[in-house]
């Protein structure tokens, strides 16, 4: 039963992941990617990590829906009404990907892995929380600062015109340079 579930989830994850780059519509590609993520979340749940499995499911559903919005903004072939092929350097990439797979899978199969050491904590979520709030505090703080830097960076990148465009480099222009009158700059 466990093996059958593992095989189904594993095949779903890899096949859906591969189909992402084969289908004719970017919307379908997004939801196939979501399917691949959900299958991996299922595999993570099979290892007993309930909290992280659920976090992956929730995060990826939201992330793929956000991605779908950007797809509609930038995509070339919204509804898959015509064949879509947008590859470059397919042959070289296939060689690199195949080599990577052979190296990684070969390593996984050939390495003499150590035996399982220790038993999982009774409450894994509690153990993770305590670890993040004590021994792994630096990790948690680094993640927090990085996320904050991402917020600032993405807003700066995505904003079309900021206050320096409107009020000059010293922010001392007598009148703001707005494209349309009537806003905060009048």
């Amino acid at each position: 039963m466990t093996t059958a579930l593992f095989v189904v989830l594993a095949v779903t994850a890899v096949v859906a992941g591969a189909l992402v780059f084969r289908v004719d519509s970017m919307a379908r590609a997004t939801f196939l990617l979501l399917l691949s993520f959900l299958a991996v979340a299922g595999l993570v749940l099979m290892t007993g990590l309930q909290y992280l499995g659920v976090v992956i499911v929730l995060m990826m559903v939201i992330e793929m829906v956000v991605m779908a919005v950007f797809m509609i903004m930038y995509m070339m072939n919204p509804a898959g009404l015509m064949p879509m092929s947008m590859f470059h350097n397919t042959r070289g990439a296939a060689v690199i990907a195949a080599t990577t797979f052979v190296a990684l899978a070969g390593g996984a199969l050939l390495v003499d892995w150590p035996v399982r050491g220790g038993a999982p904590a009774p409450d894994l979520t509690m153990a993770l929380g305590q670890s993040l709030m004590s021994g792994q505090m630096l990790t948690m703080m680094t993640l927090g600062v990085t996320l904050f830097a991402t917020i600032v960076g993405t807003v700066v990148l995505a904003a079309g015109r900021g206050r320096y465009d409107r009020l000059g480099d010293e922010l001392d222009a007598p009148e703001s340079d707005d494209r349309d009158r009537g806003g905060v700059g009048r």
Partner: protein
Amino acid sequence: MNLQAFLVVAAALVSVGLFGALTQQSIVMLMMGLELLLNGVILGAAAFWYFLAPAGTGGQVLIVIVVTAMAIEMAAGFAVTTAIYRAKRIDMTDDAAELRG
């Protein structure tokens, strides 16, 4: 269900993601390849934690880091896409070749 099986699946996900990231011309599709690659890393981390060192929390913390990295990659990637599209009406990687050596 053993460590090797999990790692082979993770290796397949990483390879497919790498293939996508290298071949796709659309910047958004390229990011989907990167996400798939990190997906494989999550699976690998969970497998290593479960089959080798379940007593510690290192594997779980690694998954938290990778999930955060995926969110950051998405946000930063879309911000860059928005900036370059606004500046040059570019949504394909082939058109954005200013840094080609």
